[in-house]
Protein backbone atom coordinates (compact mmCIF):
# COMPACT_ATOMS: atom_id res chain seq x y z
CA UNK A 1 0.00 0.00 0.00
CA UNK A 2 2.90 2.37 0.30
CA UNK A 3 3.85 4.77 3.05
CA UNK A 4 2.21 8.06 2.44
CA UNK A 5 2.45 10.91 4.87
CA UNK A 6 -0.30 13.50 4.65
CA UNK A 7 -0.43 16.85 6.35
CA UNK A 8 -2.53 19.99 6.64
CA UNK A 9 -0.40 23.13 6.94
CA UNK A 10 -1.96 26.28 8.44
CA UNK A 11 -5.31 25.58 6.86
CA UNK A 12 -8.04 28.22 7.14
CA UNK A 13 -11.64 27.60 6.10
CA UNK A 14 -14.65 29.89 6.45
CA UNK A 15 -18.29 29.19 5.65
CA UNK A 16 -20.79 31.99 5.43
CA UNK A 17 -18.72 34.42 7.46
CA UNK A 18 -17.82 31.93 10.19
CA UNK A 19 -14.20 30.78 10.45
CA UNK A 20 -14.33 27.04 11.08
CA UNK A 21 -10.62 26.32 10.84
CA UNK A 22 -8.01 28.94 11.53
CA UNK A 23 -4.42 28.11 10.57
CA UNK A 24 -4.96 24.49 11.62
CA UNK A 25 -2.16 21.97 11.05
CA UNK A 26 -2.20 18.22 11.31
CA UNK A 27 0.32 15.49 10.49
CA UNK A 28 -0.82 12.03 9.55
CA UNK A 29 2.12 9.67 9.84
CA UNK A 30 2.01 6.38 7.95
CA UNK A 31 1.22 3.47 10.24
CA UNK A 32 -0.17 5.61 13.04
CA UNK A 33 -3.69 5.33 14.43
CA UNK A 34 -4.84 8.90 14.64
CA UNK A 35 -8.10 9.98 16.30
CA UNK A 36 -9.41 13.45 15.57
CA UNK A 37 -11.50 14.67 18.49
CA UNK A 38 -13.86 17.58 18.90
CA UNK A 39 -17.42 18.51 19.77
CA UNK A 40 -20.12 18.49 17.09
CA UNK A 41 -19.62 21.45 14.78
CA UNK A 42 -16.01 22.00 15.85
CA UNK A 43 -14.63 21.49 12.36
CA UNK A 44 -13.58 17.81 12.40
CA UNK A 45 -15.50 17.01 9.25
CA UNK A 46 -14.25 20.17 7.57
CA UNK A 47 -10.64 19.18 8.25
CA UNK A 48 -11.25 15.69 6.87
CA UNK A 49 -12.79 17.18 3.75
CA UNK A 50 -9.79 19.44 3.31
CA UNK A 51 -7.41 16.50 3.67
CA UNK A 52 -9.40 14.46 1.16
CA UNK A 53 -9.31 17.27 -1.37
CA UNK A 54 -13.11 17.66 -1.38
CA UNK A 55 -12.79 21.14 0.05
CA UNK A 56 -10.23 23.69 -1.02
CA UNK A 57 -9.06 25.74 1.98
CA UNK A 58 -9.15 29.55 1.86
CA UNK A 59 -5.52 29.58 2.99
CA UNK A 60 -2.85 27.02 3.76
CA UNK A 61 -2.21 23.78 1.93
CA UNK A 62 -2.43 20.03 2.06
CA UNK A 63 0.86 18.19 1.66
CA UNK A 64 1.06 14.67 0.30
CA UNK A 65 4.52 13.32 0.98
CA UNK A 66 6.81 16.13 -0.16
CA UNK A 67 4.30 17.70 -2.57
CA UNK A 68 1.48 20.17 -2.18
CA UNK A 69 -1.95 18.88 -3.25
CA UNK A 70 -3.12 20.47 -6.49
CA UNK A 71 -6.86 20.98 -6.78
CA UNK A 72 -6.87 20.47 -10.52
CA UNK A 73 -8.94 17.61 -11.91
CA UNK A 74 -5.80 15.53 -12.50
CA UNK A 75 -4.37 16.40 -9.10
CA UNK A 76 -7.58 15.35 -7.35
CA UNK A 77 -7.92 12.17 -9.37
CA UNK A 78 -4.41 11.15 -8.33
CA UNK A 79 -5.04 12.16 -4.72
CA UNK A 80 -8.25 10.12 -4.44
CA UNK A 81 -6.37 6.97 -5.37
CA UNK A 82 -4.23 7.47 -2.29
CA UNK A 83 -6.58 9.12 0.17
CA UNK A 84 -10.24 8.17 0.61
CA UNK A 85 -12.81 9.87 2.81
CA UNK A 86 -15.80 7.98 4.22
CA UNK A 87 -18.64 10.18 5.48
CA UNK A 88 -20.60 9.72 8.66
CA UNK A 89 -23.95 8.90 7.08
CA UNK A 90 -23.53 5.86 4.82
CA UNK A 91 -26.61 6.86 2.83
CA UNK A 92 -24.61 9.83 1.54
CA UNK A 93 -22.27 7.45 -0.29
CA UNK A 94 -24.30 4.40 -1.20
CA UNK A 95 -26.25 4.69 -4.41
CA UNK A 96 -26.52 1.16 -5.78
CA UNK A 97 -29.22 -1.38 -5.02
CA UNK A 98 -26.91 -4.04 -3.61
CA UNK A 99 -23.59 -4.31 -1.83
CA UNK A 100 -21.31 -5.72 -4.53
CA UNK A 101 -22.65 -3.33 -7.17
CA UNK A 102 -22.02 -0.40 -4.89
CA UNK A 103 -18.47 -1.36 -4.01
CA UNK A 104 -17.67 -1.82 -7.73
CA UNK A 105 -18.34 1.88 -8.43
CA UNK A 106 -14.93 3.24 -7.39
CA UNK A 107 -12.84 0.63 -9.21
CA UNK A 108 -14.96 1.11 -12.35
CA UNK A 109 -14.24 4.83 -12.18
CA UNK A 110 -10.55 3.88 -12.13
CA UNK A 111 -11.30 2.24 -15.50
CA UNK A 112 -9.97 -1.13 -14.41
CA UNK A 113 -10.76 -4.30 -16.32
CA UNK A 114 -13.82 -6.25 -15.20
CA UNK A 115 -11.77 -9.07 -13.62
CA UNK A 116 -9.68 -6.62 -11.68
CA UNK A 117 -12.83 -4.81 -10.50
CA UNK A 118 -14.32 -8.08 -9.29
CA UNK A 119 -11.19 -9.01 -7.38
CA UNK A 120 -10.99 -5.56 -5.78
CA UNK A 121 -14.62 -5.87 -4.70
CA UNK A 122 -14.03 -9.32 -3.18
CA UNK A 123 -10.95 -8.10 -1.39
CA UNK A 124 -12.68 -5.02 0.07
CA UNK A 125 -15.68 -7.05 1.23
CA UNK A 126 -13.31 -9.58 2.80
CA UNK A 127 -11.38 -6.94 4.74
CA UNK A 128 -14.59 -5.38 6.06
CA UNK A 129 -16.11 -8.74 6.97
CA UNK A 130 -18.96 -8.34 4.49
CA UNK A 131 -18.44 -11.33 2.26
CA UNK A 132 -21.78 -12.99 3.01
CA UNK A 133 -23.62 -9.74 2.40
CA UNK A 134 -22.25 -9.22 -1.14
CA UNK A 135 -25.59 -9.77 -2.86
CA UNK A 136 -27.83 -8.28 -0.19
CA UNK A 137 -29.89 -5.21 -1.06
CA UNK A 138 -28.44 -2.06 0.48
CA UNK A 139 -31.71 -0.97 2.07
CA UNK A 140 -32.07 -4.20 4.05
CA UNK A 141 -28.74 -3.77 5.85
CA UNK A 142 -28.41 -2.47 9.38
CA UNK A 143 -26.88 0.95 9.95
CA UNK A 144 -23.58 -0.61 11.08
CA UNK A 145 -23.45 -2.84 8.01
CA UNK A 146 -24.13 0.09 5.71
CA UNK A 147 -21.30 1.99 7.38
CA UNK A 148 -18.94 -0.87 6.64
CA UNK A 149 -20.17 -1.10 3.05
CA UNK A 150 -19.37 2.60 2.61
CA UNK A 151 -15.86 1.92 3.93
CA UNK A 152 -15.53 -1.09 1.60
CA UNK A 153 -16.38 1.23 -1.29
CA UNK A 154 -13.40 3.38 -0.31
CA UNK A 155 -11.12 0.42 0.40
CA UNK A 156 -11.77 -0.94 -3.10
CA UNK A 157 -9.89 2.12 -4.39
CA UNK A 158 -6.85 0.74 -2.48
CA UNK A 159 -5.93 4.01 -0.74
CA UNK A 160 -2.85 4.20 1.50
CA UNK A 161 -4.80 6.41 3.83
CA UNK A 162 -8.39 6.18 4.93
CA UNK A 163 -10.19 9.12 6.54
CA UNK A 164 -13.27 7.99 8.46
CA UNK A 165 -15.78 10.50 9.77
CA UNK A 166 -17.35 9.19 13.00
CA UNK A 167 -17.16 5.50 12.08
CA UNK A 168 -18.54 4.38 15.46
CA UNK A 169 -21.29 6.99 15.91
CA UNK A 170 -24.74 5.48 16.20
CA UNK A 171 -23.50 1.90 16.49
CA UNK A 172 -24.50 -0.42 19.30
CA UNK A 173 -21.95 -2.61 21.11
CA UNK A 174 -21.99 -5.33 18.43
CA UNK A 175 -21.76 -2.82 15.60
CA UNK A 176 -18.89 -1.03 17.34
CA UNK A 177 -17.04 -4.34 17.87
CA UNK A 178 -17.42 -5.26 14.22
CA UNK A 179 -16.14 -1.82 13.25
CA UNK A 180 -13.14 -2.22 15.54
CA UNK A 181 -12.33 -5.60 13.99
CA UNK A 182 -12.52 -3.99 10.57
CA UNK A 183 -10.17 -1.20 11.67
CA UNK A 184 -7.64 -3.75 12.92
CA UNK A 185 -7.82 -5.66 9.62
CA UNK A 186 -7.25 -2.46 7.69
CA UNK A 187 -4.16 -1.81 9.77
CA UNK A 188 -2.78 -5.30 9.19
CA UNK A 189 -3.48 -4.74 5.54
CA UNK A 190 -1.23 -1.68 5.59
CA UNK A 191 -3.83 1.08 5.44
CA UNK A 192 -3.30 4.04 7.75
CA UNK A 193 -6.54 5.15 9.38
CA UNK A 194 -7.39 8.65 10.58
CA UNK A 195 -10.81 8.80 12.17
CA UNK A 196 -12.89 11.51 13.77
CA UNK A 197 -14.97 10.82 16.84
CA UNK A 198 -16.46 12.52 19.85
CA UNK A 199 -16.15 9.34 21.90
CA UNK A 200 -13.14 10.08 24.11
CA UNK A 201 -13.15 6.61 25.70
CA UNK A 202 -12.93 4.94 22.31
CA UNK A 203 -10.21 7.35 21.16
CA UNK A 204 -8.10 6.68 24.24
CA UNK A 205 -8.39 2.91 23.84
CA UNK A 206 -7.78 2.79 20.08
CA UNK A 207 -5.49 5.64 19.02
CA UNK A 208 -1.70 5.86 19.08
CA UNK A 209 -2.04 9.58 18.62
CA UNK A 210 -4.89 12.07 19.03
CA UNK A 211 -5.63 15.53 17.66
CA UNK A 212 -8.12 17.82 19.35
CA UNK A 213 -9.94 20.48 17.32
CA UNK A 214 -10.64 23.52 19.43
CA UNK A 215 -11.48 27.09 18.41
CA UNK A 216 -10.48 26.39 14.82
CA UNK A 217 -7.03 25.06 15.70
CA UNK A 218 -5.69 21.56 16.09
CA UNK A 219 -3.60 20.24 18.97
CA UNK A 220 -1.90 16.96 18.24
CA UNK A 221 -0.15 14.65 20.69
CA UNK A 222 -0.13 11.64 22.97
CA UNK A 223 -3.62 10.30 23.84
CA UNK A 224 -2.95 10.02 27.57
CA UNK A 225 -1.55 13.54 27.79
CA UNK A 226 -4.10 15.41 25.70
CA UNK A 227 -7.15 13.53 26.99
CA UNK A 228 -6.00 14.06 30.56
CA UNK A 229 -5.69 17.82 30.13
CA UNK A 230 -8.87 19.12 31.78
CA UNK A 231 -8.33 22.69 30.61
CA UNK A 232 -8.00 21.71 26.97
CA UNK A 233 -10.96 19.31 27.19
CA UNK A 234 -13.21 21.96 28.70
CA UNK A 235 -12.30 24.43 25.97
CA UNK A 236 -12.94 21.75 23.33
CA UNK A 237 -16.27 20.83 25.01
CA UNK A 238 -15.18 17.24 25.52
CA UNK A 239 -15.33 15.25 28.71
CA UNK A 240 -12.37 13.35 30.17
CA UNK A 241 -12.26 9.60 29.41
CA UNK A 242 -13.65 7.76 32.44
CA UNK A 243 -10.49 5.66 32.76
CA UNK A 244 -8.36 8.78 33.18
CA UNK A 245 -10.93 10.44 35.40
CA UNK A 246 -11.01 7.46 37.68
CA UNK A 247 -7.24 7.02 37.69
CA UNK A 248 -6.94 10.63 38.68
CA UNK A 249 -9.59 10.46 41.38
CA UNK A 250 -8.00 7.37 42.84
CA UNK A 251 -4.55 8.89 42.48
CA UNK A 252 -3.30 5.91 40.48
CA UNK A 253 -0.60 7.44 38.33
CA UNK A 254 1.27 9.24 41.08
CA UNK A 255 4.49 7.34 40.51
CA UNK A 256 4.83 8.64 36.96
CA UNK A 257 3.55 5.33 35.62
CA UNK A 258 1.96 5.54 32.12
CA UNK A 259 -1.69 6.50 32.36
CA UNK A 260 -4.13 3.63 31.78
CA UNK A 261 -5.86 3.45 28.41
CA UNK A 262 -8.66 1.01 29.02
CA UNK A 263 -10.37 -1.08 31.64
CA UNK A 264 -7.61 -3.74 31.65
CA UNK A 265 -4.77 -1.34 32.23
CA UNK A 266 -6.77 0.54 34.85
CA UNK A 267 -7.49 -2.66 36.76
CA UNK A 268 -3.81 -3.58 36.51
CA UNK A 269 -2.78 -0.17 37.81
CA UNK A 270 -5.28 -0.30 40.65
CA UNK A 271 -4.21 -3.77 41.62
CA UNK A 272 -0.52 -2.78 41.60
CA UNK A 273 -1.42 0.19 43.66
CA UNK A 274 -3.19 -1.81 46.32
CA UNK A 275 -0.40 -4.36 46.68
Amino acid at each position, binding site marked *: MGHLSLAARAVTVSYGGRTVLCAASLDVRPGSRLALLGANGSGKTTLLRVL*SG*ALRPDAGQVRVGPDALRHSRAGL*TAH*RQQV*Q*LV*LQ*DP*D*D*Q*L*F*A*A*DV*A*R*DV*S*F*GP*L*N*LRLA*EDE*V*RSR*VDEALEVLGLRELA*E*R*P*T*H*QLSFGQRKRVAIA*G*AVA*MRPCLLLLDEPTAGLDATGADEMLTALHRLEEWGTTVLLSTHDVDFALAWATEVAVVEAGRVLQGDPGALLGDTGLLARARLRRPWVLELADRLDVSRGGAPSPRDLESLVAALTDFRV
Partner: protein
Amino acid sequence: MSTGFALDDAAWASPWRRRAVGEKVLLAGGLVGVGISLPVWPGSVLAAAAALAILLGPAQVSPRVLARSVAAPLAFIVVGSLSVLVSLRWDGGPGVAVTEETRRSALSVLGHGTAGTLGVLVIAATTPMADLLGALRRLRVPDACIDVAGLVYRLVLVLLATVVQMGEAQAARLGYRDRRTTLRSSAALGAGLLVRSWDRARRLEEGLAGRGYTGSLPSLDPPRRTSLPFVATSLVALGAITTAALTMGGS
Protein backbone atom coordinates in the same frame (compact mmCIF):
# COMPACT_ATOMS: atom_id res chain seq x y z
CA MET B 1 -41.24 -0.43 10.14
CA SER B 2 -40.97 -2.27 6.89
CA THR B 3 -37.72 -1.84 5.02
CA GLY B 4 -39.28 -1.73 1.60
CA PHE B 5 -42.05 -3.05 -0.63
CA ALA B 6 -43.41 -6.54 -0.14
CA LEU B 7 -42.98 -7.49 -3.82
CA ASP B 8 -39.46 -6.09 -3.97
CA ASP B 9 -38.50 -7.89 -0.78
CA ALA B 10 -39.88 -11.08 -2.30
CA ALA B 11 -37.78 -10.49 -5.43
CA TRP B 12 -34.55 -10.05 -3.44
CA ALA B 13 -35.28 -13.19 -1.44
CA SER B 14 -36.50 -15.21 -4.42
CA PRO B 15 -34.98 -18.63 -5.14
CA TRP B 16 -35.02 -17.50 -8.80
CA ARG B 17 -33.10 -14.34 -8.08
CA ARG B 18 -29.86 -15.66 -9.54
CA ARG B 19 -31.52 -16.79 -12.77
CA ALA B 20 -30.71 -14.77 -15.87
CA VAL B 21 -33.16 -11.91 -16.36
CA GLY B 22 -33.79 -12.95 -19.98
CA GLU B 23 -35.16 -16.37 -19.10
CA LYS B 24 -37.52 -14.93 -16.49
CA VAL B 25 -38.70 -12.25 -18.90
CA LEU B 26 -39.32 -14.94 -21.51
CA LEU B 27 -41.47 -16.94 -19.11
CA ALA B 28 -43.36 -14.01 -17.57
CA GLY B 29 -43.71 -12.18 -20.88
CA GLY B 30 -44.91 -15.38 -22.50
CA LEU B 31 -47.52 -15.90 -19.81
CA VAL B 32 -48.71 -12.31 -20.14
CA GLY B 33 -48.82 -12.55 -23.93
CA VAL B 34 -50.70 -15.84 -23.92
CA GLY B 35 -52.95 -14.72 -21.06
CA ILE B 36 -54.13 -11.51 -22.70
CA SER B 37 -54.26 -12.44 -26.35
CA LEU B 38 -55.90 -15.87 -26.37
CA PRO B 39 -59.63 -16.47 -25.77
CA VAL B 40 -60.36 -16.41 -22.05
CA TRP B 41 -61.50 -20.00 -21.90
CA PRO B 42 -59.25 -21.79 -21.61
CA GLY B 43 -56.28 -19.57 -22.60
CA SER B 44 -56.36 -16.92 -19.86
CA VAL B 45 -57.51 -19.41 -17.28
CA LEU B 46 -54.61 -21.74 -18.05
CA ALA B 47 -52.11 -18.89 -18.16
CA ALA B 48 -53.40 -17.52 -14.87
CA ALA B 49 -53.30 -20.96 -13.29
CA ALA B 50 -49.74 -21.50 -14.54
CA ALA B 51 -48.62 -18.11 -13.20
CA LEU B 52 -50.24 -18.83 -9.86
CA ALA B 53 -48.63 -22.27 -9.68
CA ILE B 54 -45.21 -20.79 -10.50
CA LEU B 55 -45.56 -17.97 -7.96
CA LEU B 56 -46.70 -20.19 -5.11
CA GLY B 57 -44.58 -23.18 -6.18
CA PRO B 58 -40.98 -22.81 -7.36
CA ALA B 59 -40.87 -19.02 -6.88
CA GLN B 60 -41.98 -19.43 -3.24
CA VAL B 61 -43.92 -16.18 -2.98
CA SER B 62 -45.90 -16.08 0.26
CA PRO B 63 -49.66 -16.32 -0.30
CA ARG B 64 -50.17 -13.23 1.87
CA VAL B 65 -47.83 -11.08 -0.19
CA LEU B 66 -49.47 -12.37 -3.34
CA ALA B 67 -52.99 -11.68 -2.06
CA ARG B 68 -52.08 -8.15 -1.00
CA SER B 69 -50.33 -7.43 -4.29
CA VAL B 70 -53.25 -8.45 -6.49
CA ALA B 71 -55.86 -6.63 -4.39
CA ALA B 72 -55.46 -3.17 -5.96
CA PRO B 73 -55.29 -4.24 -9.63
CA LEU B 74 -58.16 -6.68 -9.06
CA ALA B 75 -60.32 -3.87 -7.71
CA PHE B 76 -59.70 -1.92 -10.92
CA ILE B 77 -60.33 -4.99 -13.06
CA VAL B 78 -63.62 -5.79 -11.31
CA VAL B 79 -64.92 -2.21 -11.46
CA GLY B 80 -63.84 -1.98 -15.10
CA SER B 81 -65.46 -5.31 -16.00
CA LEU B 82 -68.71 -4.27 -14.35
CA SER B 83 -68.71 -1.12 -16.48
CA VAL B 84 -68.28 -3.30 -19.55
CA LEU B 85 -71.01 -5.67 -18.34
CA VAL B 86 -73.64 -2.95 -18.23
CA SER B 87 -74.78 -1.54 -21.54
CA LEU B 88 -76.10 1.99 -21.71
CA ARG B 89 -79.12 3.04 -23.82
CA TRP B 90 -80.19 6.55 -24.71
CA ASP B 91 -83.20 5.88 -26.95
CA GLY B 92 -86.49 5.98 -25.13
CA GLY B 93 -84.88 7.53 -22.06
CA PRO B 94 -81.63 6.40 -20.51
CA GLY B 95 -81.54 2.81 -19.35
CA VAL B 96 -79.19 -0.06 -18.67
CA ALA B 97 -79.12 -3.62 -19.87
CA VAL B 98 -77.00 -6.73 -19.61
CA THR B 99 -76.84 -8.74 -22.82
CA GLU B 100 -75.12 -11.94 -23.83
CA GLU B 101 -72.57 -9.85 -25.70
CA THR B 102 -71.73 -7.59 -22.75
CA ARG B 103 -71.54 -10.60 -20.46
CA ARG B 104 -69.02 -12.20 -22.80
CA SER B 105 -66.83 -9.12 -23.10
CA ALA B 106 -66.97 -8.49 -19.34
CA LEU B 107 -65.80 -12.04 -18.65
CA SER B 108 -63.15 -11.70 -21.32
CA VAL B 109 -61.68 -8.52 -19.83
CA LEU B 110 -61.90 -9.99 -16.34
CA GLY B 111 -59.97 -13.06 -17.48
CA HIS B 112 -57.38 -11.17 -19.51
CA GLY B 113 -56.78 -8.67 -16.72
CA THR B 114 -56.36 -11.33 -14.08
CA ALA B 115 -54.06 -13.48 -16.21
CA GLY B 116 -52.00 -10.45 -17.25
CA THR B 117 -51.64 -9.20 -13.68
CA LEU B 118 -50.50 -12.60 -12.43
CA GLY B 119 -48.09 -12.92 -15.35
CA VAL B 120 -46.39 -9.62 -14.52
CA LEU B 121 -46.07 -10.75 -10.92
CA VAL B 122 -43.92 -13.66 -12.12
CA ILE B 123 -41.23 -11.16 -13.09
CA ALA B 124 -41.96 -8.63 -10.33
CA ALA B 125 -41.68 -11.14 -7.49
CA THR B 126 -38.54 -12.91 -8.74
CA THR B 127 -36.34 -10.17 -10.20
CA PRO B 128 -34.92 -7.22 -8.25
CA MET B 129 -35.19 -3.85 -9.96
CA ALA B 130 -31.39 -3.61 -10.15
CA ASP B 131 -31.24 -6.70 -12.38
CA LEU B 132 -33.99 -5.39 -14.65
CA LEU B 133 -32.26 -2.05 -15.02
CA GLY B 134 -28.97 -3.85 -15.74
CA ALA B 135 -30.76 -5.80 -18.48
CA LEU B 136 -32.20 -2.59 -19.95
CA ARG B 137 -28.70 -1.10 -19.95
CA ARG B 138 -27.47 -4.09 -21.95
CA LEU B 139 -30.35 -3.46 -24.36
CA ARG B 140 -28.79 -0.06 -25.08
CA VAL B 141 -31.19 2.11 -23.14
CA PRO B 142 -29.05 5.23 -22.58
CA ASP B 143 -26.86 5.17 -19.47
CA ALA B 144 -28.18 8.52 -18.29
CA CYS B 145 -31.72 7.14 -18.15
CA ILE B 146 -30.72 3.94 -16.37
CA ASP B 147 -28.64 5.94 -13.87
CA VAL B 148 -31.59 8.17 -13.05
CA ALA B 149 -33.93 5.17 -12.72
CA GLY B 150 -31.44 3.42 -10.42
CA LEU B 151 -31.18 6.53 -8.28
CA VAL B 152 -34.95 6.84 -8.08
CA TYR B 153 -35.02 3.29 -6.73
CA ARG B 154 -32.32 3.88 -4.13
CA LEU B 155 -33.67 7.26 -3.01
CA VAL B 156 -37.22 5.94 -2.77
CA LEU B 157 -36.02 3.29 -0.34
CA VAL B 158 -33.89 5.76 1.63
CA LEU B 159 -36.77 8.24 1.85
CA LEU B 160 -39.52 5.70 2.45
CA ALA B 161 -38.67 5.38 6.14
CA THR B 162 -38.64 9.17 6.36
CA VAL B 163 -42.12 9.46 4.90
CA VAL B 164 -43.49 6.83 7.27
CA GLN B 165 -41.88 8.46 10.30
CA MET B 166 -42.92 11.97 9.31
CA GLY B 167 -46.51 10.78 8.94
CA GLU B 168 -46.42 9.04 12.31
CA ALA B 169 -44.91 12.05 14.03
CA GLN B 170 -47.67 14.25 12.63
CA ALA B 171 -50.33 11.75 13.65
CA ALA B 172 -48.92 11.67 17.19
CA ARG B 173 -49.46 15.43 17.39
CA LEU B 174 -53.02 14.96 16.11
CA GLY B 175 -52.18 16.15 12.61
CA TYR B 176 -54.69 13.80 11.00
CA ARG B 177 -57.57 14.53 13.33
CA ASP B 178 -59.97 15.90 10.73
CA ARG B 179 -60.06 16.89 7.05
CA ARG B 180 -58.60 20.31 7.62
CA THR B 181 -55.62 19.13 9.67
CA THR B 182 -55.14 16.17 7.33
CA LEU B 183 -54.80 18.46 4.34
CA ARG B 184 -52.37 20.72 6.21
CA SER B 185 -50.31 17.78 7.45
CA SER B 186 -50.23 16.14 4.01
CA ALA B 187 -48.97 19.40 2.55
CA ALA B 188 -46.27 19.68 5.21
CA LEU B 189 -45.35 16.08 4.47
CA GLY B 190 -45.14 16.78 0.74
CA ALA B 191 -43.04 19.91 1.21
CA GLY B 192 -40.81 18.24 3.79
CA LEU B 193 -40.37 15.29 1.46
CA LEU B 194 -39.25 17.48 -1.42
CA VAL B 195 -36.73 19.28 0.78
CA ARG B 196 -35.42 15.97 2.10
CA SER B 197 -35.16 14.56 -1.45
CA TRP B 198 -33.10 17.52 -2.59
CA ASP B 199 -30.96 17.35 0.49
CA ARG B 200 -30.29 13.65 -0.04
CA ALA B 201 -29.36 14.26 -3.67
CA ARG B 202 -26.99 17.07 -2.78
CA ARG B 203 -25.28 15.05 -0.06
CA LEU B 204 -25.04 11.98 -2.26
CA GLU B 205 -23.39 14.06 -4.94
CA GLU B 206 -20.73 15.16 -2.48
CA GLY B 207 -20.31 11.67 -1.11
CA LEU B 208 -19.88 10.16 -4.56
CA ALA B 209 -17.48 12.86 -5.73
CA GLY B 210 -14.81 11.35 -3.50
CA ARG B 211 -15.35 8.00 -5.19
CA GLY B 212 -14.63 9.43 -8.61
CA TYR B 213 -18.15 10.48 -9.64
CA THR B 214 -18.22 12.73 -12.67
CA GLY B 215 -21.82 12.34 -13.76
CA SER B 216 -22.29 8.67 -14.54
CA LEU B 217 -23.00 5.85 -12.09
CA PRO B 218 -21.49 2.63 -13.40
CA SER B 219 -21.76 -0.57 -11.41
CA LEU B 220 -20.88 -4.13 -12.23
CA ASP B 221 -23.76 -6.56 -12.68
CA PRO B 222 -23.20 -10.02 -11.25
CA PRO B 223 -22.51 -12.66 -13.92
CA ARG B 224 -25.59 -14.76 -14.74
CA ARG B 225 -25.80 -17.77 -17.05
CA THR B 226 -28.94 -18.60 -19.01
CA SER B 227 -30.29 -22.03 -18.16
CA LEU B 228 -31.28 -23.96 -21.27
CA PRO B 229 -33.54 -26.39 -19.38
CA PHE B 230 -35.43 -23.42 -17.89
CA VAL B 231 -35.89 -21.82 -21.29
CA ALA B 232 -36.94 -25.13 -22.85
CA THR B 233 -39.44 -25.89 -20.09
CA SER B 234 -40.89 -22.39 -20.35
CA LEU B 235 -41.31 -22.69 -24.11
CA VAL B 236 -42.94 -26.12 -23.79
CA ALA B 237 -45.35 -24.85 -21.13
CA LEU B 238 -46.27 -21.77 -23.16
CA GLY B 239 -46.69 -23.91 -26.25
CA ALA B 240 -48.92 -26.34 -24.37
CA ILE B 241 -51.17 -23.55 -23.09
CA THR B 242 -51.45 -22.06 -26.56
CA THR B 243 -52.24 -25.40 -28.17
CA ALA B 244 -54.80 -26.27 -25.52
CA ALA B 245 -56.43 -22.88 -25.86
CA LEU B 246 -56.64 -23.04 -29.63
CA THR B 247 -57.96 -26.62 -29.78
CA MET B 248 -60.35 -26.49 -26.82
CA GLY B 249 -61.43 -22.93 -27.48
CA GLY B 250 -62.64 -23.96 -30.93
CA SER B 251 -65.12 -26.51 -29.61
